[in-house]
């Protein structure tokens, strides 16, 4: 069957390779080298998360406001993307992820914030690896998270804030609130919450609890929109909101799946639960509405789905299908209650329900994973102590929420004092599109 020359050639090739392997073993065995498959997946995930922001979140939010404010929401999402990306490049990434001076178990400044060793990607060449992927790929993936978090908050003060105030607030909020919390949770050994054993796979605390808690303060300080809650302020374009929901949903596969930083079974299971949870949450919301209002609404379905997605975020990567069902159910119930009941009772005007949906969802997932991450319940943690994990998770969520509230309060008070937070009555009546940007969304 074998031609002799071919055999000889093959043996030769093998010997050459063998000797080559002696001198450059990492090229051949690549045990810690670049994995192109993992890199491809995280690159795509970065694109998906950016897609969640522009145009996903812009559409989701833009469709919910009145027609005179739609461009203001788009503009805010786009501007935040640009501002935070620049901050992230300049020093944000370094402050969040530099590991200099850190040591597992040791407390110190760098347990709370990273250093400046990676400022402006100084010292990070394209060849540097983070695990099996280039560090620049990790950089861009994490950038997308830093971008979307303040983006979520704008829903709370939609339809009334000055654009300048939004820009300044978002930039500073990322620096003062997001970067340290990101570092404390995801900074690796030596980081405050990481050392404590906090589990937050893709950002239940880092993204959703921070955004939700800040949104609460922002909604309160912003004050109500003129006419709220007497005047009806129905969404001007629910098809846009639903389109945005679809984009967020699909993008979330990258958000959670990409957080495995590899294309493997963990990523796969993360994606699976990222599908199950929003489905269960949305069906839960739909069932409640059907029962209470006689008719299920598309907006209710979409809201439930986003709640389920927010809730599964910290838990994806550790829980299995059972956990996803439980978290989906719990977030559907809890977030429904928050948005339709609690908000109205307390009377703050969280215009697009950031608190109820993202804050509520983030909390549900962060806490419930302490139970469902256990292998006994289909999760991946073999020796999980549910009680202590629950306490750790609660502590982390609460302390991050409180910290974010304080930062948000101080920032907004300061901005209000200097340039003012809200547009004047006339501008609000005319709408932010004309008054802040001199443009109209539609000229049909």
């Amino acid at each position, binding site marked *: 069957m074998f031609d002799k020359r071919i055999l000889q050639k093959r043996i030769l090739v093998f010997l050459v390779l063998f000797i080559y392997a002696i001198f450059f073993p990492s090229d051949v065995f690549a045990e810690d080298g670049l994995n192109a498959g993992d890199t491809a997946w995280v690159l795509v995930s970065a694109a998906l998360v950016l897609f969640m922001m522009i145009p996903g979140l812009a559409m989701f939010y833009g469709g919910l406001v009145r027609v005179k404010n739609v461009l203001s929401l788009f503009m805010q999402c786009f501007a935040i993307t640009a501002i935070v990306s620049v901050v992230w490049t300049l020093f944000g990434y370094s402050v969040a992820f530099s590991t200099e001076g850190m040591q597992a178990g040791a407390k110190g400044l760098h347990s709370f914030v990273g250093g400046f060793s990676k400022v402006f990607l100084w010292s990070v060449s394209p060849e540097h690896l983070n695990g099996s992927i280039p560090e620049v790929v990790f950089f861009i993936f994490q950038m997308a998270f830093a971008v979307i978090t303040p983006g979520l908050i704008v829903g709370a003060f939609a339809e009334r804030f000055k654009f300048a105030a939004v820009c300044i607030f978002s930039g500073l909020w990322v620096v003062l609130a997001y970067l340290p919390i990101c570092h404390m949770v995801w900074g690796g050994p030596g980081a405050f919450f990481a050392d404590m054993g906090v589990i937050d796979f893709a950002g239940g605390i880092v993204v959703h609890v921070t955004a939700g808690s800040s949104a609460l303060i922002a909604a309160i300080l912003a004050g109500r929109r003129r006419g709220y809650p007497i005047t009806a302020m129905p969404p001007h374009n629910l098809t846009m909101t639903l389109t945005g929901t679809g984009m967020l949903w699909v993008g979330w596969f990258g958000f959670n799946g990409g957080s495995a930083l590899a294309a493997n079974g963990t990523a796969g299971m993360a994606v699976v639960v990222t599908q199950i949870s929003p489905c269960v949450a949305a069906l839960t919301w739909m069932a409640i509405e059907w029962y209470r*209002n006689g008719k299920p609404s598309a*907006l209710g379905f979409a*809201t439930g789905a986003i709640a389920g997605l927010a809730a599964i975020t910290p838990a994806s990567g550790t829980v299995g299908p059972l956990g996803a069902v439980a978290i989906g159910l719990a977030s559907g119930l809890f977030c429904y209650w928050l*948005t*339709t009941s609690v*908000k109205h009772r307390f009377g703050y005007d969280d215009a697009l329900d950031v608190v109820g949906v993202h804050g509520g969802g983030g909390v549900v997932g962060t806490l419930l994973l302490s139970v469902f991450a256990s292998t006994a319940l289909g999760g991946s943690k073999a020796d999980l102590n549910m009680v202590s994990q629950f306490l750790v998770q609660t502590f982390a969520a609460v302390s991050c929420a409180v910290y974010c509230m304080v930062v948000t309060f101080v920032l907004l008070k300061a901005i209000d004092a200097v340039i003012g937070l809200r547009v004047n009555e006339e501008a609000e009546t005319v709408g932010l599109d004309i008054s802040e940007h001199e443009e109209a969304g539609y000229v049909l």
Partner: protein
Amino acid sequence: MKKVEAIIKPYKLDDVKQALTAIGCSGMTISEVKGFGRQKGHKEIYRGAEYMVEFQPKTKLEIVVGDDKVEQVVRSIQTSAATGKIGDGKIFILPVEEAIRIRTNESGEEVLQ
């Protein structure tokens, strides 16, 4: 000349238009309006916030006709637009003093043909 203004249910427009062309009334102007009247609106709920939509979508027809044709036009609309349910709408008759065709600068009833 008179202007006949009819507020009708939008989905009846095709029927009304046919009835009118059948009696030789070949010009009209329509617009989308919203009506408020006896017909109850519907409730919309957005994330727990109820919101009463009291204004119903209606279509408004405006037809300027010679005095002699008014009755015929009104009857024809009345018949073709009626469903017998609340909200079928109203017909109003207003006086018109003059009509001019822009293209030719003609004026008077001949303009209406």
